[in-house]
């Protein structure tokens, strides 16, 4: 089936299979920053933004992308790079497999344009599993990043 959608601010027209998932479509388009994890919506590593909202790309049918907008970490490079600095400063990064999914959820939080307390940040991060860091260092880094704390 033919679909037309916006991918990282560029219009794309491609053919997809009826049961092709967004994650597989993105890999076909060489966007390997979108990771494959559990493949059943449980781990968060395949998160992308669909119309600026985080969704699990492993379980979203690509045929439903018509006239919609998808953002991967390649589409938010400046923000992702800034966030990476905060992650580095807090030691919030080990294997890095979960980072691109988390970066997109953090980007979605930032787009809310309002101060977010710790509980709200945790709420947004629920569903992102990280097997390395224990979450506290990530949480500190994300709070500092959202607060624009340059002292980190």
């Amino acid at each position: 089936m033919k679909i037309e959608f916006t991918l990282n601010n560029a219009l794309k027209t491609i053919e997809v299979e009826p049961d092709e998932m967004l994650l597989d479509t993105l890999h076909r388009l060489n966007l390997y920053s979108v990771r494959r994890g559990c493949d059943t919506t449980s781990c968060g590593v395949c998160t992308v933004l669909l119309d600026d909202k985080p969704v699990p790309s492993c379980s979203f049918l690509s045929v439903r992308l018509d006239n919609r907008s998808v953002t991967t970490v390649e589409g938010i490079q400046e923000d992702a790079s800034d966030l990476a600095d905060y992650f580095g400063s807090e030691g919030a990064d080990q294997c890095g497999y979960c980072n691109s999914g988390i970066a997109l959820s953090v980007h979605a939080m930032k787009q809310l344009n309002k101060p977010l307390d710790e509980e709200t940040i945790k709420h947004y991060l629920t569903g992102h599993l990280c097997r390395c860091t224990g979450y506290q260092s990530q949480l500190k880094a994300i709070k500092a990043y959202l607060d624009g704390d340059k002292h980190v």
Partner: protein
Amino acid sequence: MRIENYHRATSLADAYNHLSLNKKNAIIGGGGWLKLSGKKIPLAIGLEGLALDAIEDDGESITIGSMTTLNQMAAHPSVAELYSNILPEAINQIMGVALRNIVTVGGTIMGKYPFSDLLTPLLLMDVTLEFYKEGHLSLSDFLNQKGRMDDILVSLKIAKKTGKGYFKKVAKTALDFAVLNVAVISNDLGYKIAIGSRPSRAKMAEEAMTYLNNTEINQETINEAAKRVSQELKFGTNHCGSAEYKASVGEVYVRRGLREVSNHED
């Protein structure tokens, strides 16, 4: 799930016509659980172009389109007003934000998922489902129907009533399916109790509710009602826990729920 063909419906009539072509054709809700099924579908029908994701409050009831996502529903102020925020409370414990951005309320209802955290509190409310062909049906009647319904859920209407609500999801980890979920509400008509993920589908504890609604509410009657719930409902053993464990945990949380909604704390 293997989907051989996909049809983007242009109207409800078009969707129904395509659904009727083959018993194995299916409407796709949010698609959150597609990977968990091994079914083969000749034709999947998508409702995403039919603008079925609106929430309207007319003062007496809240009408929610079947393609409304769980996050849209949880964020709506009218939904939060129902029974002390009980629906957002239940929804926000379902895995992560990302999943809730695709899972739809229509898919949750039509799937009759036994593990659903939303169906348990929803069952306690006055909920009417609107189907394209069959017209109106109460949520409890729909859930009690056996087999698949070859129709399209258009919306659900929740009567606006004030009251208190309590919801408890018992799970081994925050992102896991519930070992058990418990919902209790109270309003001017009395008390209602439901338990889901027993592991079978959510069910109301009718006998315990009748007992409770015909007696004075105090610590003793609350304890007795909770005990009756654990005896009345059928609990089963699965990988999450034994039937005995579920009955025992259910009794404890029904007791806590009743104390909370009746203001009879220890």
